[in-house]
């Protein structure tokens, strides 16, 4: 048995690693291919980075391929991303052509041979045209599909119906499809640079180097500069809180290869900040995992005021560091925050401000919520649970009588 999995024995709930090993026993030697659209940046790439190694540790033969695309392609898939999560967009014939030709070119280039294939998100979904019928193909949807734009969904659906099974982060994201749709909650890796325990000194050094003073409580939102994360709403909420309590706001985010819109959103954020010295906007490279880790550990309260969300891994990341979280009552955030026990769910700028103030003014309450949050993550949102669920799914799909 490989060593990486053993490192989780003391971190995950007791017995979890043993269970994973038993589940994997009959699957040894089988190959598994994951395909997504970026090697770095975003929660999907982060989790795949570790998950692939853990599959190897338990005896499977995993591979991870990344779809290659040019700027035009990623502009189109960003429009898909927005439209599938409810934004009004126009789907043109050119967009269809850009998508189809890029995915087909990738289909010619990529080695898609495996005993099972997991395709992540809409960008590479069209690769299913190259599937071999006897091999299970799994579509893993990480985004909020509860109210997709009709034209975009119709286009994507024509590919999705060619899969054997679709995985969603929440039941309400599932659509009417002629294939089994399963729930698969995402997870974080507690041993990654983003989440591993850091010495206090390192936290202090890193945060100070990023120009964040530690003289006042810090309210933190970590997310891509994406309108669905409502960074401007966070600034408005912070300004309401600051009328009563001295604190600072840090908006830390980055860009990803497959997100061309983030620069425009960042501009809107800078405009909203208007040079306010208590608001720090940090644009971090996609590899700044330890810096984000340090920021989350230095924060008093973490906010994730999304208006749309697939899952929102940053909520779980913050809870793992013992922080109370104020989150928008959308998507997977509602599944992570136990209302009044690990944080609060809010629906407005005012609601966010009220809860942020409550937590900053009550450090004992914040600490108690933080402790509960960490245990909640240990039981439900660690990568070991994700690995276990994938193994159960593969057992099901590879069983002689699959897909009941």
């Amino acid at each position, binding site marked *: 048995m490989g060593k990486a999995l053993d490192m989780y024995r003391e971190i995950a709930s007791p017995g979890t690693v043993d269970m994973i090993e038993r589940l994997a026993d*009959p699957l040894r030697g089988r190959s598994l291919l994951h395909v997504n659209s970026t090697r770095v940046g975003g929660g999907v790439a982060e989790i795949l980075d570790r998950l692939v190694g853990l599959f190897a540790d338990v005896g499977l033969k995993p591979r991870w391929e990344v779809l290659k695309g040019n700027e035009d392609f990623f502009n189109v898939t960003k429009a898909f991303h927005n439209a599938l999560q409810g934004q009004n967009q126009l789907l043109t014939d050119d967009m269809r052509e850009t998508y189809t030709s890029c995915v087909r070119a990738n289909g010619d280039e990529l080695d898609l041979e495996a005993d099972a294939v997991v395709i992540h998100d809409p960008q590479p979904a069209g690769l299913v045209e190259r599937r071999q019928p006897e091999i299970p193909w799994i579509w893993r949807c990480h985004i909020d599909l509860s109210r997709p734009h009709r034209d975009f969904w119709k286009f994507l659906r024509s590919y999705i119906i060619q899969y054997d099974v679709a995985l969603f982060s929440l*039941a309400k994201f599932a659509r009417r499809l002629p294939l089994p749709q*399963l*729930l698969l909650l995402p997870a974080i890796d507690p041993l990654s640079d983003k989440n591993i325990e850091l010495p206090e000194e390192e936290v202090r050094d890193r945060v100070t180097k990023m120009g964040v003073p530690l003289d006042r409580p810090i309210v933190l939102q970590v997310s891509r500069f994406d309108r669905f994360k409502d960074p401007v709403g966070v600034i408005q909420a912070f300004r309401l809180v600051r009328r009563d309590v001295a604190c600072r706001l840090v908006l830390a985010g980055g860009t990803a290869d497959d997100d061309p819109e983030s620069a425009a959103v960042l501009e809107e954020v800078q405009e909203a900040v208007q040079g306010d010295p208590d608001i720090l906007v940090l644009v971090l490279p996609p590899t700044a995992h330890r810096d984000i880790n340090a920021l989350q550990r230095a924060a008093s309260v973490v906010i994730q005021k999304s208006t749309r969300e697939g899952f929102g891994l940053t909520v779980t990341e913050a809870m793992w560091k013992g922080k109370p979280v104020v989150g928008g009552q959308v998507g997977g955030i509602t599944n992570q925050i136990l209302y009044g026990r690990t944080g609060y769910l809010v629906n407005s700028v005012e609601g966010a401000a009220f809860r942020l103030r409550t937590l900053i003014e009550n450090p004992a309450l914040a600490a108690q919520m933080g402790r509960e949050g960490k245990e909640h993550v240990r*039981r439900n949102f660690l990568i070991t649970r994700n690995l276990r669920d994938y193994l*159960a799914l593969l057992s*099901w799909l590879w069983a002689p009588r699959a897909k009941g």
Partner: protein
Amino acid sequence: MSVKPYALYSCVDIRQIINRRAHGEQELLEGIEEVHEDSIYYHTHSYYLHGKYDYDLYPNDFATWVADDVRDRLLSERLAVLDPFQFENLEALREEIVNTIDDHINQLGFSPRALTGDAFHFFRAHIMSFPTGITVRSRKELSRAIRTAMPQTIYYHFFEDAFRKGSRSGSLVQWVADELGDQDLAEKLATFNPYRLHLERIRSELLSLIDGSPKDRGEAGAE
């Protein structure tokens, strides 16, 4: 006579989202009437398998949704007390749930809807069981195994391998009776109601039954 060893199993579920939702109590009733038995199983058992006792209000998803989203306290309490152990099988349990909701709606004269706007989503459970690699041949070994077993192992033997398969007690109880010849312990295990406890409490209650009094601790089978 040598004792045939008993292999302990564990399990994990695959949660299938079946495209059926309820926005109010009448739709919930109709859904419960029509969904596959695996759905009734999932919504009355996931509380235990997924350790929802830390955050869910009641031990079945129907009661919790009615409480959290419909905000109908009366019905949620009536659903919460339904104890699967008191029913012969899932169909009998389904019927009682349907009757309870139907009776409540009739008394109200209307069907309340979810105030939060969050629908009830029906799931279906596919249970994947697998051997833990642990076998026991005596009461003492059983005690040791239960003490360190994964919670899902306890779940498997006292829920999945029992009620799910249509009986009050599973193959473990049968083995205690047939192979260990310990009718007293078999009887105690057969009448033990796991639905009143969460998995860690079930473990400690089981251990007190298996370890029993000093007199009970004599080995009934070969070591």
